[in-house]
């Protein structure tokens, strides 16, 4: 069982602390016979976790389950705990990045890496990547995508607000470009981490 705490920062000082525990022994009620049971806990900065946090947890869980090779660790529990330290916009994509770095750092077997990118559609139609809180409020629609590292496929999409199909496709294409930069960042930080130790 490994315990990791990478910290993830997005532009604009959004930070999320991720801690990963597992694969560890699971409670009988929660264990799955053929693969690992993944659980995500998201704690907001202020107040107790509410319905919004629960829905984000499910989104994160399903994204992680798509990449984690759970079949290699049956009847175990993998627990991912996320604590929001500060929120200045693009929180969900920051959580996604923190989750992936936690999985990477823990050395869990993964089919692919993933990253989170948020796009804000402004009223005049321009696309803003990784918006700040102010930009999110003024935007017509906010779309968050989880992009996988293999062939830049989309793992998860969440939208808030309304947009046309063409706009959504444009945002997705823009997010896939941005994903390249984020994966490069993962590679560089892991390389740096293991270069001197």
């Amino acid at each position: 069982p490994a315990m990791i705490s990478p910290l993830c920062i997005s532009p604009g000082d959004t930070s999320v602390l991720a801690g990963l525990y597992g694969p560890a022994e699971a409670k009988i009620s929660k264990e799955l016979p053929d693969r690992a049971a993944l659980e995500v806990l998201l704690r907001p900065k202020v107040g107790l976790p509410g319905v919004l946090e629960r829905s984000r947890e499910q989104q994160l869980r399903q994204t992680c389950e798509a990449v984690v090779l759970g079949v290699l660790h049956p009847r175990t529990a993998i627990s991912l705990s996320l604590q929001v330290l500060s929120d200045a916009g693009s929180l969900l994509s920051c959580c996604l990045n923190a989750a992936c770095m936690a999985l990477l750092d823990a050395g869990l077997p993964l089919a692919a890496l993933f990253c989170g990118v948020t796009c804000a559609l402004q009223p005049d139609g321009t696309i803003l990547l990784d918006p700040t809180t102010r930009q999110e409020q003024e935007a017509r629609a906010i779309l968050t995508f989880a992009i996988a590292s293999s062939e830049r496929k989309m793992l998860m999409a969440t939208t808030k607000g309304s947009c046309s199909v063409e706009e959504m496709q444009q945002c997705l294409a823009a997010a896939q470009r941005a994903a390249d930069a984020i994966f490069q960042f993962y590679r560089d930080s892991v390389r740096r981490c293991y270069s001197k130790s």
Partner: protein
Amino acid sequence: QVWQIRLDMHLLNHDGNITDAASIAGIVALCHFRRPDVSVQGEEVTVYTPEERDPVPLSIHHMPICVSFAFYHQGTYLLVDPTEREERVMDGLLVIAMNKHHEICTIQSSGVVMLLPDQILRCSKITAVKVAEITELIQKALENDQKASRKEGGKFGFAESIPNQRITAFKMGSAAVDTNDVEEQAGEIIAKADPPAEVFANPVLHTPGTAQIGEGMESSWGDLEESEKEEAAEEEGESEAAAFECEKVETEDTSTMKETKNDEPIVLSDSEEEEVVILEPQELPQKTR
């Protein structure tokens, strides 16, 4: 009417002496906090937003700081500010909360150690020294933050305080992303995609927050998995979509919203959350309605 103040503390790393750390964090948070300004004229109360009037700080009379002492061997050995390992093997714990005016706010003693009065006096002297140092550090940090927030472009806040000279810390500035041919790529995908489903009739609004689109179909809960996969593949032609139920539901709903826009739909609930999917037994997402 009164203000209610709520202090949430999150423990990020436990390496001993949470009490002291928490007390410092708490008092600094309260000192740093700014509440909205209020003016009261007779019975009328006006609360100003942060944009209208600068928020005001709370009235903090003094800053009590906790200092913990761990005792070993029936009081023979004393350790100030014990680490986690030291805490685990200690016999007794003494916590003294004091402010910089040398006033003791709290004394708590626990464990199996019986302490002599002069031991406690000695501890309180040590506490006075520690509290003076810590209070000065706090004042400096608050001033720096004040100055940085006044200056445009000054960096402050949690993210900046993380040390970035360590091997495990890696920072990257915001990177420019080349999105020149994004529109063309998106256009190609849409051109290759199958045309969306036929336009739906106007939604029927039963009561505020409940709407029905189209007629019902017989439920096919038995083979839900396969039918949803087929629909998602046909619907947008998004070859990127991996299989997720909730995400598929949303792709369906965005297309629904787009089509109903053309028919001037009645406004559904204005919840800010993602698409509201009202599930009725015959309303499960089916492509052909």
